[in-house]
């Protein structure tokens, strides 16, 4: 990533600082702790820079459910494929999703068979496609957390404003707090969270309060550079050693305590919380976002009648256990044998933010 024009980037990548913070961590850390990095972006920084090697043996890092492509359910892929097979439909999607296996096919395979699928970088490009293809129904596959949900909301409001009536959203947008709460309820091995920086930029810091106040977990919102991660781990270890659990923010250059109110308003206007299915976690109450009644005309779920059966993960794939930090990619029998980034069996190997793909890329 070329960030040559940023004035302060070198400081956040400074190896001397990394080493000094690492020795601070070693000095104060006594307990055996498991820390979960929720976001795929954090997993990437950790493995790209070999940050685990700077930590004492009593600290274990676990990858979490923060890769939007990875947590998309098989049912969602099947739903998208079923809609794509209908006449006069153009599917539009963020690129990573097209290679995720559904129960019997993937969007990429369907594209080869003639389903019209266009990859977009922004949901607004999908809206432009709808404007340029008035005779087609253009469906955007809305995946992602509190970061991309406001963008989808903005696109629907633009569609209303510009009277684009052939634009639809198939929403699989998800909310982070209910998923994290499910994780700590299920499994108490997690002592603290390296909390997602960009979700928090939208939501603000308060969404993690239940994790600290009710479940006694350490939470620090983190930036994405190596020094950010080490500093976050130091802050987490301090909380755990002193048993003083609170939501702290390391990423103050981006995350304001109140978040981004404009994005929150758009999200609340267009969506209502709903039960959602996560790969790895199953159905989690109130953890997804459905389109509210007022914008039903833009909701692909309501406007396209298709039948979708519930199916299992590919045989042998332990994506679910990887997404919940219970197992590491190397513990999967398929990993690097039959499951590779070129030929992925599970969603965690597809996305560049997926734990399996990252472990594969930076494996020794």
């Amino acid at each position, binding site marked *: 990533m070329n960030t040559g024009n940023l004035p302060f980037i070198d400081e956040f990548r400074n190896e001397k600082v990394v080493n000094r913070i690492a020795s601070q961590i070693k000095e104060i850390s006594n307990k055996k702790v498991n820390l979960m990095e929720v976001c795929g972006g954090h997993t990437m920084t950790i493995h790209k820079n070999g940050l685990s090697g700077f930590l004492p043996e009593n600290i274990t890092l676990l990858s979490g459910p923060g890769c939007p492509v990875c947590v998309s359910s098989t049912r969602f892929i099947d739903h998208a494929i079923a809609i794509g097979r209908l006449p006069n439909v153009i599917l539009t999607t963020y690129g990573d999703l097209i290679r995720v296996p559904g129960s019997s096919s993937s969007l990429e395979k369907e594209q080869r068979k003639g389903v019209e699928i266009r990859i977009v970088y922004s*949901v607004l490009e999908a809206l432009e496609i709808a404007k340029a293809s008035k005779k087609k129904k253009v469906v955007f596959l809305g995946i*992602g957390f509190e*970061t991309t949900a406001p963008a989808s909301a903005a696109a629907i409001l633009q569609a209303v404003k510009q009277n684009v009536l052939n634009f639809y959203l198939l929403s699989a947008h998800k909310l982070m707090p209910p998923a994290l709460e499910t994780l700590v309820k299920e499994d108490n091995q997690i002592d603290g969270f390296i909390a997602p920086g960009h979700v928090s930029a939208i939501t603000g810091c308060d969404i993690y309060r239940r994790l600290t106040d009710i479940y006694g977990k350490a939470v620090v919102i983190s930036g*994405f550079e190596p020094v950010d991660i080490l500093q976050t781990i130091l802050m987490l270890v301090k909380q755990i050693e002193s048993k003083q659990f609170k939501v702290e923010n390391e990423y103050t*250059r981006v995350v304001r305590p109140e978040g981004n109110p404009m994005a929150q308003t758009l999200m609340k206007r267009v969506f209502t919380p709903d039960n959602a299915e996560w790969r790895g976690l199953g159905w989690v109450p109130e953890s997804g976002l459905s389109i509210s009644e007022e914008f039903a005309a833009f909701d692909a779920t309501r406007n396209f009648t298709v039948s979708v059966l519930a199916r299992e993960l590919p045989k042998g794939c332990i994506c679910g256990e990887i997404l919940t930090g219970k197992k590491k990619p190397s513990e999967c029998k398929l990993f690097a044998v039959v499951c590779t980034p070129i030929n992925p069996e599970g969603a965690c190997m597809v996305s560049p933010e997926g734990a399996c793909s990252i472990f594969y890329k930076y494996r020794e």
Partner: protein
Amino acid sequence: MCLGVPARVIHIEGSEATVILGSVKYKASLLLLNDVNLGDYILLHAGFAIEKIDCLEAEETIRLFNEISNLEKE
């Protein structure tokens, strides 16, 4: 898809900005962010500016790192 990148605003037209990251230019929708000005650093995420980057806070964070790690003495 979910990775945010910092970029500098070099042009604004209505609700759309042009931002530069290294030497590459991107479009950034301003539909989720108010009060964006030329020269600001923003966080670009899936085509949208989702937050401004506060350079003073960045400097403060760096100052704290240095304090913690005593680098200033070196």
